[in-house]
């Protein structure tokens, strides 16, 4: 009798031990009636690491920037004109060359670069510090290299914002919905208290489309798998001299710039 009880206790302890080893919660959610199954989209574009080359020479007029920014912000319900400038939300925006590349600063920089604007966005780093610090895996790296956000899980600690050396992350200091003028019903908005950023249009890649900014750029932005030697982006990278932002930090940015 006693032996039996001891055995049961042992099994219980072992079960408890296993459940703390970090297996996904789904493994134990046996109460879920699993009646369907999950599959990937057959139209999805696949890659080992998505990357981007931004040809800054092709961004000439104010309009070139605005078109690209608007393409992104409008389909992703990014709020506009938040009254407090310090708390605004940005996924993709323009920044002066010397600010985007502070390590390239040089008092004798050619005039045409000094105040040149470049497009900046999340670099979808190969070794993203934001993912390293997130305490809930709310931001994580997908198999295709996209640094993804799970808005449902984010607790809003903003550790990722401290960790990102590119200032690519925005926090919803207030409910953004009133500042989204024309909601795209096919994409969610966000709630206050979570962090957001560019997601490389994962939702468009799933449908077999290119990211919105790439489509709107008229060829100024090239997108593709940087580890696929046959991709267009690999060819562009081979043939052009490109730079990345803050390479010395070891983050492995995947957004490259032709200057």
């Amino acid at each position, binding site marked *: 009798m006693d032996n039996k009880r001891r055995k049961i206790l042992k099994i219980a302890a072992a079960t408890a031990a296993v459940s703390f080893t970090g297996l996904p919660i789904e493994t134990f959610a046996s109460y879920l009636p699993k*009646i369907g199954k999950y*599959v990937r989209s057959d139209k999805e574009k696949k890659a080992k690491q998505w990357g981007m080359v931004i040809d800054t020479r092709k961004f000439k007029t104010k309009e070139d920037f605005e078109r690209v920014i608007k393409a992104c912000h409008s389909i992703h319900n990014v709020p506009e004109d938040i009254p407090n400038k310090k708390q605004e939300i940005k996924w993709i925006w323009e920044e002066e060359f010397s600010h985007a590349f502070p390590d390239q600063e040089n008092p004798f920089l050619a005039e045409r670069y000094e105040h040149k604007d470049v497009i900046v966005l999340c670099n979808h780093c190969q070794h993203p510090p934001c993912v390293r610090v997130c305490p809930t895996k709310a931001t994580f790296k997908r198999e295709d290299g996209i640094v993804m956000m799970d808005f*449902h899980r984010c607790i809003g600690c903003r550790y990722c914002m401290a960790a990102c050396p590119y200032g690519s992350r925005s926090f919803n200091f207030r409910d953004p919905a009133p500042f989204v003028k024309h909601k795209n*019903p096919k994409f969610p908005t966000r*709630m206050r208290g979570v962090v957001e950023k560019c997601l490389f249009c994962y939702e468009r890649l799933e449908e077999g489309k290119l990211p919105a900014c790439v489509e709107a750029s008229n060829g100024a932005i090239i997108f593709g798998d940087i580890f696929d030697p046959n991709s267009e982006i690999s060819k562009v990278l081979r043939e052009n001299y490109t730079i990345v932002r803050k390479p010395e930090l070891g983050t492995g940015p995947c957004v490259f710039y032709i200057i």
Partner: protein
Amino acid sequence: MYDKDKIIPGLIIFFFLITFPLWYNLGQAAYESPKPKLPVNVKKCIEDTEWMRANHMELLNEWRDMVVRHDMTHYVNSAGVNYEISLQKTCMKCHTSKKEFCDKCHVKVSVSPYCWDCHVAPEEVTNGQ
């Protein structure tokens, strides 16, 4: 008993407080099952209605994790039909009104899921206009 004058009133107040829901609801209309408006054109939901009624919350939770975290964009139901995983694009395609469908039960049983804090509900069409 020591402190009788404190303990007995204390017990009475305690008893009143824990039975408060009963007092409060006394004389109010009896509970009626909510009647959410079902889609007209479509006969079948992704799983059968009874199952959905009992399990939609777990299913949606699982959908959310699958699509956001595991890149599983489609759900094949028990009958083998393939659906895109999307609250806004799939569920609300048939259940066109949040007010007439979701809210009907949720309000009644006082649950407020935060889906709609972010997900965009379809625009409500008012009847006859």
